[in-house]
């Protein structure tokens, strides 16, 4: 196994969709498409060059298929790995591998969210874990808080922080 070769692929265009409170009725796929167009403009490529497509969102069940149809592209390689905030690092690695194998040449990686407009509850399906949900952790904040409490305990964070948080 050779693995991914450093420098074998490059990120050539980067852009953002509209941010914050976007226009009424804007969908996650609208925002992905907007960002994709801007990223292609950033590097002088166009949709007809795109033969790889990646996306991740909690708001569209088959987002990469929806996006491909929306953009009118027919990618030879696509991916929708969802592993939270690091999904797109995986997409970059998968695109790099696919480009290295000659499965595609130009990959677009897109993300869109309307959570700011529709709220937390609408933006992702409620997922029940029978061993944790009954204790009503406010996720993801409570998960970070539990880890932080343990970190402070084990590594005795500076007393300034502890004083500010009423710990001494």
């Amino acid at each position, binding site marked *: 196994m050779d693995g991914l070769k450093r420098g074998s692929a490059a990120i050539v265009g980067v852009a953002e969709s509209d941010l914050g409170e976007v226009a009424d009725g804007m969908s996650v796929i609208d925002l992905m498409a907007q960002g994709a167009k801007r990223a292609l403009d950033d590097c002088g490529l166009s949709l007809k060059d795109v033969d790889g497509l990646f996306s991740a969102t909690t708001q569209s069940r088959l987002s990469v298929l929806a996006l491909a149809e929306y953009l009118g592209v027919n990618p030879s390689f696509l991916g929708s790995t969802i592993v939270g905030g690091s999904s797109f690092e995986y997409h970059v690695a998968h695109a790099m591998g696919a480009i290295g194998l000659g499965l595609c040449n130009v990959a677009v990686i897109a993300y869109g969210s309307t959570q700011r407009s529709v709220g937390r509850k609408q933006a992702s399906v409620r997922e029940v874990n*029978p061993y*944790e949900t*009954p204790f009503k952790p406010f996720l993801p904040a*409570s998960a970070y*808080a*539990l880890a932080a*409490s343990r970190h402070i305990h084990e590594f005795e964070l500076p007393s300034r922080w502890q004083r500010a948080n009423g710990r001494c």
Partner: protein
Amino acid sequence: MPSNQDAPLKTYLDHLARGELAYQFSPEAGRAVFYPRMLCPFTGSDRLEWRISKGLGTVYATTVVHPTEGMPFNVALIDCDEGFRLMSRVEDIAPEQVRIGQRVRFRVHQPVGEEPPQPVFVPVEGA
């Protein structure tokens, strides 16, 4: 055809309904497994034994949730003496009074309505 196995969750909740905190033990790994599953995550073996915890443990991590409505409540991770960790809460003291390292004892909380019982913890007296 072998008959279908019980879901790990069902066995766990059946024990809880009897006031017992059940966990699995992997003989091959020589250690406890929690949450309950079909396979041991340490060895891949499907030979897991059910055991009943003595119900004593130590707070591993703690936080307080302030809901939009209702009183703040504790969320904690508890290390049981048998070597497994679970999410729970410590009751009977103010949620922000819960301390890492505090010794706690299991008890069953039965929510009103259809919800299954929950394993919660209270401080061990004099610990």
